[in-house]
């Protein structure tokens, strides 16, 4: 069928020199139609609306086309414009209406606004390039071709309980000069590292925000060097439908969509799922002092939670709070997620400060938040992983109680804290540790172990190395006098703060890292690793590197050689986990798990206890003993099944390569019924 076959593929009138006709209200955004482009934007309160067209990169508009009153359907302004060069076009909207903050309206007809549905945005095409603050509409929507050839690619649908998640920052993963990739810090660079991920054994990457944001959105400087700080992590979203151009080596050519899709396709081909960290709790517009980019100028009262006086609620800690349960915003979020699943084939989402998704427009937590329910049951999202960071910055803490509708998983913050406290030798942790090891049935009863995303470290907080090398955070470089970042780190420096040459301390730190990883990778639930922890990456004690676009954050690939021992250990543990379904049981265990102490069958639950052993038994048997005590203990082992004997999989106290034996090479114990566990170490035994 050619364009001539449609009887509406012609303009009905001319505005500002362009042939136009009344458009279709749905879908929102800019959509290519026969002969032209359909533009559609929502605003309930605007009195007038203009479509502003630019030639790509031009400082001044090419034309401004006011939407005639007849082109408005309900609260939607829609117009089809004919004869545009789609590749050379940028656009925005101008909206007029009342400026009456007390009643929620903040229209400013002098501003050209970014389309909330922009599928591609120019303006930050090359990471770090100097911003042009005078440019009208600094983040300009562009049209994108959606005919990427996926071949037979589709989301992988790996059972959640079988995932080993690896959280990474697209830029930080390959930006360091040591990465050896052809385009450091980009989607293309990450694609070149797929073989590394495959060898490590992870089967899911969780990408820190990849929606368009402005890395220059940080006014602070490093007090020591005077260097400007960045919005490096990217949690202040500018465009929710657009991949970050500065993460694409081809962003300067406007090909970020193809580049990101090529990355996803490549990861899928290697058996690795892609989860996006998405930030629907706030936007880059901040509070009253922040820039007007899009939502504020289009329909402030729809998109943001406002106090009765018209101020911004700040449940996110960043200035504003997205009005997630407003019906229009619900649709917006749903459309956005469907877009990433259908257009980009992503496998799931991790929702930043997801407790905000539960709040009503006045901020009240809802027992049945319609947005959360809608996402759980949406047909397009049906097989996506949905993971909540189940708290917000205003004290709503819902770990274990986030409304799950049988679908949602959570970042298990209690797992993190319990394992950390146990490892450093805190009293009174053994009982809770036991609960955490088996998928936290106290929190997720009826939901299964896959509801629990277990982690010891994440981007937010210390790296694993720093968890065992620092008692307190060292965030001076962030320019806030070390006031930012969490204080309750449950960390222990093993004897001295920060770098040391003391071999005893270094050895203990190495063992503590292995202990954490051994516990994590033998726990039921979904383990999540922080990228670089397998190489003992340090941030020099900074536990909040959101602003550090430098070697503090970038992964130094030289560590792969320097810390080959730890890397081998992690790789082996992941292989062990994949080889033994017993460790990944989706149901909370019953009698197939038993607890042990120094004596078999006699776990010590007393507050002073620092040793716990767990035996998992089904067709096979795995025994894991965790000793956080500073003394060794001679263990009496439980009897393995008749005809089998205990074999040693791992002992974090042993020197490499004896710290981990690869599948099939595990040696039998010298004394079949006993094992001496060294101070502060973890051992894994397998009966066969």
């Amino acid at each position: 069928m050619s364009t001539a076959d449609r009887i509406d593929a012609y303009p009905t009138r001319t505005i500002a020199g362009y042939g136009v006709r009344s458009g279709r209200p749905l879908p929102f955004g800019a959509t290519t139609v026969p002969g032209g482009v359909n533009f559609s934007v929502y605003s309930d309160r605007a009195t007038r609306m203009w479509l502003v067209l630019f030639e790509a990169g031009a400082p001044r508009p090419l034309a401004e086309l006011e939407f005639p009153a007849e082109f408005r359907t309900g609260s939607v302004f829609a117009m089809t414009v004919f004869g545009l060069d789609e590749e050379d076009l940028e656009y925005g909207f101008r909206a007029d209406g009342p400026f009456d903050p007390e009643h929620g309206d903040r229209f400013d007809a002098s501003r050209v606004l970014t389309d909330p549905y922009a599928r591609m945005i120019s303006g930050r095409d090359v990471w770090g390039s100097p911003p042009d603050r005078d440019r009208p509409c600094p983040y300009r929507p562009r049209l994108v071709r959606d005919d990427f050839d996926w071949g037979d690619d589709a989301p992988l649908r790996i059972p959640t309980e079988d995932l080993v998640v690896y959280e990474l920052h697209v830029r930080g993963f390959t930006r360091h000069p040591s990465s050896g990739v052809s385009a450091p810090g980009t989607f293309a660079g990450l694609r070149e590292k797929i073989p590394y991920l495959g060898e490590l054994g992870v089967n899911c990457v969780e990408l820190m925000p990849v929606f368009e944001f402005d890395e220059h959105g940080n006014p602070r400087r490093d007090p020591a060097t005077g260097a400007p700080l960045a919005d490096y992590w990217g949690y202040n979203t500018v465009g929710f439908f657009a991949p970050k151009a500065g993460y694409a080596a081809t962003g300067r050519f406007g090909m970020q969509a193809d580049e990101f899709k090529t990355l996803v396709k490549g990861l899928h081909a290697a058996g690795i799922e892609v989860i996006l960290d998405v930030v629907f709790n706030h936007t880059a517009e901040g509070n009253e002092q922040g820039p007007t980019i899009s939502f504020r100028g289009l329909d402030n009262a729809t998109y943001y939670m406002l106090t009765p006086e018209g101020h911004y609620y700040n449940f996110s800690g960043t200035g504003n709070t997205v009005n997630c349960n407003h019906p229009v915003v619900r649709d917006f979020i749903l459309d956005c997620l469907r877009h990433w699943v259908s257009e980009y084939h992503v496998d799931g989402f991790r929702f930043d400060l997801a407790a905000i998704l539960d709040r009503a427009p006045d901020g009240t937590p809802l027992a049945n938040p319609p947005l959360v329910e809608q996402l759980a049951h949406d047909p397009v999202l049906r097989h996506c992983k949905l993971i909540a960071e189940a708290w917000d910055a205003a004290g709503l803490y819902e770990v274990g109680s986030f409304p799950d509708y049988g679908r949602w998983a959570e970042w298990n913050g209690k797992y993190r804290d319990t394992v950390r406290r146990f490892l450093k030798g805190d009293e009174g942790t053994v009982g809770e540790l036991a609960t955490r090891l088996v998928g936290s049935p106290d929190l997720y009863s009826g939901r299964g172990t896959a509801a629990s995303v277990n982690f010891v470290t994440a981007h937010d907080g210390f790296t694993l190395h720093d968890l065992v090398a620092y008692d307190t955070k060292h965030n001076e470089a962030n320019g806030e006098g070390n006031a930012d970042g969490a204080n309750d780190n449950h960390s222990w420096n093993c004897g001295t703060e920060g770098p040391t040459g003391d071999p005893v301390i270094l050895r203990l730190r190495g063992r503590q890292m292995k202990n954490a990883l051994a516990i994590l990778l033998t726990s039921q639930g979904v383990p999540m690793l922080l990228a670089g922890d397998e190489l003992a990456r340090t941030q020099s004690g900074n536990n909040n590197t959101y602003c550090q676009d430098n070697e503090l954050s970038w992964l130094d690939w030289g560590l792969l050689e320097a810390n080959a021992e730890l890397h081998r250990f992690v790789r082996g543990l992941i292989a062990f986990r994949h080889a033994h379904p017993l460790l990944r049981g989706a149901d909370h265990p019953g009698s197939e798990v038993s607890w042990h102490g120094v004596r078999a069958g006699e776990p010590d639950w007393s507050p002073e206890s620092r040793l716990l052993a767990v035996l998992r038994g089904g067709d096979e048997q795995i025994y894991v003993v965790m000793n956080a005590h500073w003394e060794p203990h001679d263990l009496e082992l439980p009897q393995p099944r008749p005809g089998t004997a205990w074999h040693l999989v791992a002992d974090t106290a042993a020197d490499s390569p004896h710290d981990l034996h690869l599948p099939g090479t595990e040696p039998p114990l010298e004394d079949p019924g006993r094992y001496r566990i060294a101070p502060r170490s973890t051992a894994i035994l397998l009966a066969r």
Partner: protein
Amino acid sequence: MTVSVRSREQDGVTVVELEGEITSVTSAELQADILPLIGGTTTTVIDLSGVPYISSAGLRTLLLVHRQALRRQTVTVLVGLAEEVRFVMASTGFLDFFDVRENASAVLGPVRE
């Protein structure tokens, strides 16, 4: 703006030399110019040494030409890719679809089955 198209036949191979930037502005005409040249021989070499830049629309045009050629039982080989063009094609996955050689003389002999 146009892309100039010159073609010749040599050793049973059609060599098409392009010159200019392939963008949304030039690609429709280019596609119309190239398609008639394809199918007369079993191999078409598209020489891009005169092409400093190919846009998103341009890459799609090349892929469409390639697919049309396959339907006519003709193999398409790209040669003479500028470093940046090759990089962009690799990063966006387009390179995976094509047989790419250094230059035309590398093709004027046996071609990959």
